[in-house]
């Protein structure tokens, strides 16, 4: 098994394009576990942490460009990100444990291709856009279009996710992420919901996005759920509509982490609770 640590995205792309069974190493919190349990046996590991763009957090066009290999712990320590994107930051810091957050990255969380990934619903709700670098150069893809199914990504051969762009935050807007797990920590999300919304001076919701994880083969952008609450003040009726809209798109599986009916039921509950938190944060923002 070879290990390479290219210093440029082009270098990484070339290595990946040239090798049949190559895996990208960012935080390693998924890859190393899969290697140890013989789920994967790569011929080449490409460590992207040496590529500068993957490790930076910079302001860009009023929004934030976050490197794909910045760790959850580093994101949490960033002085401004938490205030602007509390939902994205809390989602990234629910992955695993303190130790895991010391290594896990947004890029790895997305590209591992699990619909239960914690950070993805929050990124989708935030309208994040992934910048990919490949043999044909750079291209952008909304995060909701990156994961196509379990372990299936829209990346072409040789492409890596280099960074994410979070759009500018208007005043009176915020986000929140909630997940359901049976314990208080350490579990894979049984359901994960990210909600990002904006309100006007009267407190009415003017824009919203809802990301839903672990209840379908991919993480969903639920437009119907957002539509249910835009133009409302998230009163009881709007909450009920939000829950129903979320439940309607769920297509979960029965597995050792949750049953179908449980996931559908709880998805609605979490969507309502996450929306209320986001609303509360938006008011005080």
């Amino acid at each position, binding site marked *: 098994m070879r290990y390479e640590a290219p210093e440029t995205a082009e270098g990484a792309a070339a290595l990946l394009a040239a090798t049949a069974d190559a895996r990208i190493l960012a935080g390693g919190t998924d890859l190393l576990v899969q290697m140890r*349990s013989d789920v994967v046996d790569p011929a080449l590991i490409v460590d992207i942490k040496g590529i500068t763009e993957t490790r930076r957090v910079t302001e860009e066009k009023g929004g934030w460009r976050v490197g794909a290999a910045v760790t959850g712990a580093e994101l949490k320590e960033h002085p401004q990100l938490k205030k602007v994107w509390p939902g994205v930051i809390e989602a990234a810091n629910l992955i695993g444990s303190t130790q895991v957050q010391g290594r896990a990255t947004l890029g790895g969380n997305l590209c591992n291709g699990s619909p239960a990934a914690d950070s993805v619903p929050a990124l989708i709700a935030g309208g994040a856009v992934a910048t990919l670098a490949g043999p044909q150069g750079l291209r952008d893809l909304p995060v909701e279009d990156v994961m196509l199914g379990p372990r299936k990504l829209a990346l072409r051969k040789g492409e890596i996710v280099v960074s994410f762009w979070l759009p500018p935050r208007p005043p009176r807007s915020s986000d929140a992420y909630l997940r*359901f797990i049976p*314990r208080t920590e*350490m*579990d894979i999300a049984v359901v994960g919901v990210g909600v990002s919304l904006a309100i006007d001076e009267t407190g009415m919701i003017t824009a919203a996005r809802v990301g839903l994880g672990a209840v379908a083969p991919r993480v969903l952008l639920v437009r119907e759920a957002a539509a249910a609450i835009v133009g409302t003040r998230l009163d009881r009726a709007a909450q009920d509509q939000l829950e129903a809209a979320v439940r309607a798109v769920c297509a979960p599986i029965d597995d050792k982490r949750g*049953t179908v009916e449980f996931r559908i*039921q709880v998805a609605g509950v979490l969507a309502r609770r996450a929306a209320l938190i986001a609303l509360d944060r938006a008011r005080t923002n």
Partner: protein
Amino acid sequence: MAEHGANGGNGHFVGTRTIRPDGVDKVTGRARFGADFNLPGQLIGRVLRSPHPHARIVKIDTATAEALPGVKAVITRDDFADQPSEFVPAGEMMMNYKDVVRNVMAREKALYEGHAVAAVAATSAAIAKRALKLIDVTYEVLPHVIDVVEAMRPDAPVLHDDLFTAGVEPKPDQPSNVAKRVEIALGDIDAGFAKADVIVEHEFKTAPVHQGYIEPHAALASASEDGSAELWCCTQGHFIVRAHCARLLGLDIAKIRVTASEIGGGFGGKTVVYLEPLALALSRKAKRPVKMVMSREEVFKASGPTSGATVRVKMGATKDGKFVAGFAELKYQAGAFQGSPVQPGVMCAYAPYDIENVKVIGYDVVSNRPKVAAYRAPGAPISEFAVESAVDEIAKKLGIDPIQLRMMNAAREGTKAAYGPKFGPLGLEETLNSIKKTEHWNTPLRKWQGRGVASGFWFNIGGETCVSLTINEDGTVSLMAGTPDIGGLRAALTNVAADELGIPYEKVRAIIGDTGSLGFNFLTGGSRSAFSGSMAIVEAAKQIKAELCARAGKLWEAKADQVEFKDGAVRPLGALAEKVKPMTIADFAKVAGKTGGPIVGYGRLNAQGAGPSLGTHLVDLEVDPETGRVTILRYTVAQDAGRALHPAYVEGQFQGGAVQGIGWALNEEYVYGEDGRLQNAGFLDYRMPVASDVPMIDAIVVEVANPRHPLGVRGVGETPIVPPLGAIANAMENATGIRFTELPMSPPKVLKALKERDAESGAGR
């Protein structure tokens, strides 16, 4: 009458929170656990395991694996002689060596996914891994059965064609998966129910749960050409390991020397052998040391969890609250070979209570899962969960406070237990009273919060024990015990030795001796090591004190009644005191050679008189009605320790057992697919409590002295896991109005039950 601290035990250190002698090495990483030993030239051993839950092993072809460069030995069933059927005690269960040899290495059949089929020793882990892939096993896959009720059906796939149910008349002529039927009875159960004003009946179901020790099994074996061998392993009983390995490898016991490493948790799961015979067999064949360590996945798939079970309970009481009838039928899974803890489960079910009419039946049932191993009070948490739930229902039906009801029916001194003996003094009432007095019990609750109480019983055992106390030349004392220290034993025994000899704690140094250094010691289990060990230390100290008095008698030309040992010295009495000065242990040490040679005392006994430890737990929890998630808010344990040799480690047992019980009640379970394979063989999906899942666990140490122990000690390690299941189920009933009869009470189950109840009652949402 108890000999309280016979001959000089002044209670200076017993009962205090001394620093454990093995502590510094454990907080610095220096302590050597099972996988921390290495020998020069060692090989790495790995095991090939069956992917099938039930299959005939037609052929094993190891030629290609043996030819791989770096592979030094390959073993299969052909490397182990078959064993006749013979039952021997192992922990609190009986083991059959015919089964032991087959569990260690499959013979005719693979009986569970993970069953060892072959093993290799190679110069590196990578080569060993590759070698396993080169072993060609031909399986004839057979239908499998996992669930205990399914396994009992007449058309179930049969695991052993020579297993005929014992304990039934007439003896069956067909083999089945029911290994035995056991029964205990007291009084007349039908007459009891006829008297009852209220009867409660339920069927309960529990899933298999694993002991969950953080340290995987590990062993390092080094065999010599003369047939002798050395073995380092993490085990709860190195003398038992020696016995098993000697039998399985056909060696004289004297030729195997086993050293117990520090052990990273066991809870009963390390009272049996898995890797040890394999490592020895490989080492013998390869003529080099062989080190073997299980992966976490192997621990879950190939080491024994405890039984899953189905339990039917029927209990009757008169309207004043007196229990008049207690019936239970227990069906316990044994895993692939017989030997579930159904017998202790049967014995403990109603043991906390004084009931005239009791009948408990138990079935030991095999199924295609790993052979179960002991897990902390084996069998008792399951049966007592069912009974404590029924007790709570009776309390509700009669409108009697649940603590009051238990108090009214509590077993006490003189009560005849349904399983046979008449009890000596017991501490159940004291624990109930302690709970009643707590601020916890008297704190109001809010909606969706519930409070539950339950009591628990475990008999504890004594058993064969051998310790030594040696006076060194400088007057310091070496204490050697023979039961591995799983959580503070050395500190507790040091306390006792220091008190018995009247010397400072720091002057005694405790170690755990290897099998060559002491007579036979039964394993650390049955909550016996502090009980038996301290009893043996008292004996050993007595011998030393007697020896020193005899030497003083010679030196001073005095008679026996003119000298006594007190406070660390032999003291002249009466007129003699004017002629000679007292001699301390250190003084004798200086002249040991001249006065008769080395000064050593042994405690050798089969400790009897173990007293049961009773406990009562109180738990507050909150249910999120929209998700079924349960949060434990508050937890108090009150348990009888007889005499707490080291209070902090006694409290630690209470707290650790309570949290294991919380995991068992709420989230832990083995999840099998239709294919008979384990789906959650890791810490991610086998959900044990993490630090943020539980609150502080308040521990109240009650002391009702055990009159049959010189210091009043009762074992405490196992009882703490018995009450939590019932206490939490009772709290759930109080929080939701629903009686949960199936464990774990995981969120999907709780939410489903809440929704069904709402639908039935026509409530909205």
